[in-house]
């Protein structure tokens, strides 16, 4: 299958992340699966006129397009024109290009939360009018209509994340190449379930602290970051702590909050990213699918039962009290 990759209004970080693909490297992995880039703005040789000819060939139906990958949000400003991003050399807004090319592709993949929902490019009053391919924030309907289906019959596949994990992108492409990605393999926001069926909380190394509500109070401390430091890993989809990033790490493993970057509208949490909003001292954003009363009851019980090892380690920058060792049997 061939892939046309366009970078619309984003940071390019999903491509940079994609290049971190390992065992094997990106080019071998895709090549072995029969995937090839028609063009990629960071990786291909062709520039300028060569690319314009290629795009014209696709638009005129001379070249069949298998997968259109779009990285970055789609800008609608100023005043609906999309001119805040002109695809250079073409005089046409990226909005126009995407609307023209998407119906020609067998599959359309939104790479990253910007392309999926608007993402960080739509933060802070959204000065450039950024939207996603098929969503405007959490609302269906973006640069493409909510009813849009590509030639394969699938909606835009939203490989959300900021950035995306390289495996989320490559495995989506590999599943498409193998014709094994059905609608049932996507969640309600069209994110592939192979990573969206997990929560960032799963396999988080701070889980034992979480169980006892032994919380970090400041950055650099080991405890759970849900109560004070803005962590929403219990609500965020992603297998970050199961799969691991860049050799097996993750945001929470590095001591800072999960900000739910796989979700629409994560860029405007309505509170400072690294501070947990509270009402009467109690965090507002409790785990999404747990009855609040139960959570409160369990939390107060577990807080009361917190072992000293956890309460002290939670506010230390390294393990101060190690697990106790059982006495030998006599």
């Amino acid at each position: 299958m061939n892939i046309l990759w366009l970078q619309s209004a984003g940071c390019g970080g999903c491509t940079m992340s994609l290049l971190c693909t390992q065992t094997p490297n990106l080019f071998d992995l895709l090549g072995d699966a029969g995937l090839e880039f028609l063009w990629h703005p960071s990786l291909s040789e062709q520039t300028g006129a060569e690319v314009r000819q290629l795009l014209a060939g696709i638009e005129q139906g001379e070249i069949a397009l298998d997968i259109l990958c779009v990285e970055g949000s789609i800008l609608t400003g100023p005043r609906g024109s999309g001119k805040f991003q002109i695809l250079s050399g073409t005089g046409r807004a990226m909005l126009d290009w995407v609307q023209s090319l998407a119906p020609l592709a067998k599959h359309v993949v939104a790479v990253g939360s910007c392309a999926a929902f608007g993402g960080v490019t739509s933060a802070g009053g959204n000065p450039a009018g950024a939207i996603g391919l098929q969503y405007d924030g959490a609302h269906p309907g973006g640069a493409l209509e909510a009813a849009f289906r590509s030639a394969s019959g699938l909606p835009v596949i939203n490989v959300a994340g900021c950035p995306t994990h390289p495996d989320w992108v490559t495995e989506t492409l590999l599943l498409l190449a193998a014709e094994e990605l059905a609608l049932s393999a996507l969640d309600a926001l069209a994110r592939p379930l192979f990573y969206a069926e997990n929560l960032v909380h799963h396999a988080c190394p701070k889980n034992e602290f979480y169980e006892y509500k032994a919380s970090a109070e400041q950055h650099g401390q080991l405890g759970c970051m849900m109560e004070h430091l803005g962590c929403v890993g219990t609500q965020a989809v992603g297998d970050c702590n199961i799969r691991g990033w860049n050799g097996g790490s993750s945001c929470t493993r590095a001591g800072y909050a999960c900000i739910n970057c796989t979700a629409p509208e994560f860029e405007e949490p309505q509170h400072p990213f690294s501070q947990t909003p509270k009402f009467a001292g109690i965090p507002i954003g409790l785990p999404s699918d747990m009855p609040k009363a139960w959570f409160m009851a369990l939390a107060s019980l577990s807080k009361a039962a917190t072992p000293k090892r956890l309460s002290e380690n939670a506010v230390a920058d390294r393990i101060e009290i190690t697990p106790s060792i059982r006495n030998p049997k006599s």
Partner: protein
Amino acid sequence: MTKRSLIVGPFNRVEGDLEIRLEIADGHVAAAYANAPLFRGFEMMMLGKDPMDALTITPRICGICSISQSAAAARALGQIAGQGQTSQGALASAILHGVENMCDHLTHFNLFFCADFARPAYHGRSWHDRAQARFTAMEGSAIRACVEARAEILHIVGLLGGKWPHTLAIQPGGVTRAPSARDRIRMASTLSAFRRYLETTLFGAPVEAFAELSSAQALRDWSRGDAGLFMEIAADLDLSAMGPGPGRYLSFGAYPLADSRAFAPGIWQGGASAPVNSAAIREDLSHAWMHGAAAHPAQGATHPDEDMKAPAYSWCKAPRLNGQSYETGALARQIIDGHPAALDLAQQGASVFARVAGRLLEVARTQILLESWVAALKPEERFIQEIQLPKTGSGEGLVEAARGALGHWISLREGKISAYQIIAPTTWNFSPRDESGCPGPVEAALVGAPVGAGEDTPLTVQHIVRSFDPCMVCTVH
């Protein structure tokens, strides 16, 4: 005289969106106009936000300079607080930042820049078969080796910073994760493996041997590894005569540690260096699609002209220091730090060759620095301290991204961000003309470049533009 105009775009293998308009007379570029055709408005997004949110949002300006943006924001906030990183926190930040810059240089050399030498247009050159084998886009053996080595060294960012890009590990008071003795030896091992890559593939010799080259001629004479292949190609294509610079170089100084910066800050012109006076920076808006007057970034604002009226032709503002354009990047950094081979290159004048050679020198030096920084980590010490931000204040964060001088200027009022301005390296290098009509560095560098009669996307223009390693997403932000 024959005249024609050309628009070069989409201009790929640069980070972000770039369009170059050329006026061509008698087979040479007579005038060039660099357009950054993407505007997102990050400076506008920041207004009214909690100051610490800058650490989450501004790295997402750019997926290739993400840690640089984060370091600049953290430093500006630290200056407002009057408190900085602990000395070990600064060291860990330098390691994170150094790995990103190293990766950016390698990505540029292999994937972005050298891929052009594999083009069919160079068929018949004595080196073309080897360039094709090594540098063909997505296929060449050097391209594969590069992405594998890059992914491995980024494990250091994983270990210290969770992920790359877009880590939140760098804070005004230090870093969020204190490395252990075990972490330190893992990072040292990763660096040993990376050294092996550099020494077998890029340099074909100990990194010290390359880092210690003391003249431009010694660089040109280097014959080993992919660096040697580049030197051979550069000589044959006379890349030293291609793409001159303004001869004025700027560096804010890279890697602020407890005592000093690992690469010195300064400006350099005509053999003389001087301190950087950031108060003398102005952003000129005469040819940018922006409303307002020229201002220092601490007083500046971002009001896009939605009508995109002429004579403006880019979303990029035009930063000037003491009223003049400056070139920034690895070459500038090495000149200002006093590296003898870089100084020699500067005496001969900037060029496509000098920019790439300067970057290679920095790769070798950065490997040595990274090893020394990892060895200097003291796991028992404090890696972060809490800082208290005042409700009102202003600060500047000056750092060096791979591509050069990066500054964040932040003002706070009533505990919220009241002004935020950013000048990125490529804002300097790819600025449009200023009020006096003076072109930005790349616009000037392109003048005189030969353009073949049948060329619609001239190769010399591509070499010159890519020699700067532009990052267009940072440029306008």
